[in-house]
């Protein structure tokens, strides 16, 4: 049997690698682990399959290399499942033991003969310190005893003398790293529903609230308001006031220019003087990103927008567009600059 050991191990590894690329990889691997386990402890198949099988996915992620299989199987085949930190292990096993997969159990019995040797041999050879524990457990067939052994083994793992501990932990962390990406997009907190509909709904709501935050930054005076209805109110008011300003300004332009000829010389001078204001305006908006300052400058801007200009036709417009804007001063470029500077050094 000792001679046959390397071959057996190889066979096991091959099996392992094959199963990596097959659809039923989880089932196969769990079988292997069961077999090794059986060889070590001579316990009944059904118990073992019950315990280990439900953690197929965990096994898949936990054993990236075939070499580590032996370590896991000879050490604590059933405790190896990456269910997070070590104190979770017992809980996980006892929780999963209630769902017996009959098909896997049958398969295990079919392959029992060949695997017993491997498990046993690897066990004896690799881990002498584990052997005592396993022999103690060999006599016990019942599930309770096995569980007791699990606890025993676990305490040993957490003990200071075992070098297995760090490896286990490493693999656990590795497994958790691998498993995390499945949940990184949508994370359900405690007590939240996890079915796909509510997850999608949560994502949607998060998106909406994110955009609402942007709107809050954009709309002046919206920062203090909590609650969606109030925010929407403010946004509506702002959009309406902007639209009314456009109306008003177009009316003003129509009043100022009796004929719609904006001749090009005039326009060029306007375009020339337009960036001059911009140069003053830009540093505030794009060098200082403090939102409070932005709001200050914006409110200042709005006030200057509504600076009263005497036009004969203002009676057309309803005065409600000035409801929230107090006309502060007469329009002047110099004053605008002053306002911007004040906003910058606030």
């Amino acid at each position, binding site marked *: 049997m000792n001679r046959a050991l390397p071959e057996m191990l190889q066979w096991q590894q091959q099996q392992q690698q094959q199963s990596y690329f097959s659809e039923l990889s989880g089932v196969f691997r769990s079988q292997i682990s069961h077999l090794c386990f059986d060889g070590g402890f001579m316990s009944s198949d059904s118990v073992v399959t019950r315990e280990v099988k439900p953690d197929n996915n965990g096994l898949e992620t936990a054993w990236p290399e075939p070499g580590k299989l032996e370590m896991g199987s000879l050490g604590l085949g059933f405790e190896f499942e990456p269910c997070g930190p070590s104190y979770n292990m017992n809980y996980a096993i006892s929780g999963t033991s209630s769902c017996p997969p009959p098909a896997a159990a049958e398969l295990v019995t079919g392959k029992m003969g060949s695997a017993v040797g491997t498990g046993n041999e690897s066990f004896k050879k690799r881990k002498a310190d584990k052997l005592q524990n396993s022999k103690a457990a060999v006599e016990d067939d019942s599930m309770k005893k096995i569980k007791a052994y699990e606890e025993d083994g676990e305490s040993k793992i957490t003990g200071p003398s075992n070098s297995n501990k760090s490896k286990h932990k490493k693999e656990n962390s590795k497994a958790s790293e691998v498993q995390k990406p499945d949940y990184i997009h949508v994370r359900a907190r405690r007590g939240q529903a996890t079915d796909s509909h509510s997850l999608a709904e949560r994502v*949607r709501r998060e*998106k*909406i609230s994110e*955009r*609402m935050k*942007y*709107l809050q930054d*954009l*709309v002046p005076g919206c920062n203090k308001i909590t609650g*969606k*209805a109030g925010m*929407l*109110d403010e*946004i*509506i008011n*702002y*959009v*309406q006031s*902007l*639209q009314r*300003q*456009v*109306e008003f*300004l*177009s*009316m*003003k*332009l*129509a*009043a*100022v*220019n*009796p*004929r*719609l*000829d*904006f001749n090009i010389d*005039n*326009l060029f*001078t*306007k*375009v020339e*003087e*337009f*960036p001059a*204001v*911009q140069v003053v*305006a*830009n540093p505030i*908006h*794009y060098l200082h990103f403090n939102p409070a300052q932005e709001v200050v400058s914006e409110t200042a*801007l709005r006030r200057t*927008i509504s600076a009263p*200009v005497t036009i004969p*036709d203002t009676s*057309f417009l309803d005065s409600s567009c000035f409801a929230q804007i107090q006309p502060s001063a007469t*329009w002047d470029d110099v004053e605008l600059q002053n306002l911007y500077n004040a906003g910058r050094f606030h």
Partner: protein
Amino acid sequence: MRPHSSLKQEFLKEWIKGLQRCSFPKKSILERKKAIKLSADIAMASARNGTTCWSRALISSAAKDGSDNNHLVKQILGPESDRPAVENKAPARQASVCKKILKRSCRIRRRGRRKCGAAAAPSSIAKHLVKKRRQILRSLIPGGEFMNEICLIEETLDYITSLRVQVDVMRSLATASVRGTE
């Protein structure tokens, strides 16, 4: 967010182009105002290059509005942009028909619900308030009737920024022309 200054320049360019195209003597001040406003709106929409829903909706609604408006819009947009406006007409009509049907069905359903007469929970009241305001916002933003909630908020963001740009440019132009006449 896009830098304001480049957007402003683009808007001003478009607007001046539009104004020059429709620069014929108008009789009343209201007509002139209408032309200016329409040209400003369309310039704002075309400064966005049709990347946003509201700008497309604005142009298409302005194009199909009335015969007078249509004429103006054609003038402002110029000959090269005739075709898309015509193409936009059919789906808009279909959508309006669909909307009517939907409204009718909603009315029927609401009647049924009211007969049930369940006591309204505070959360449902809040939801109703938010829904009402969302409807108002939808009516304010061009093309907002056909948007879902996320799209509506995004478009509102974009619309507010471009409205600001529009107001800024119009104000500076108005002050400049006021100073010119004085």
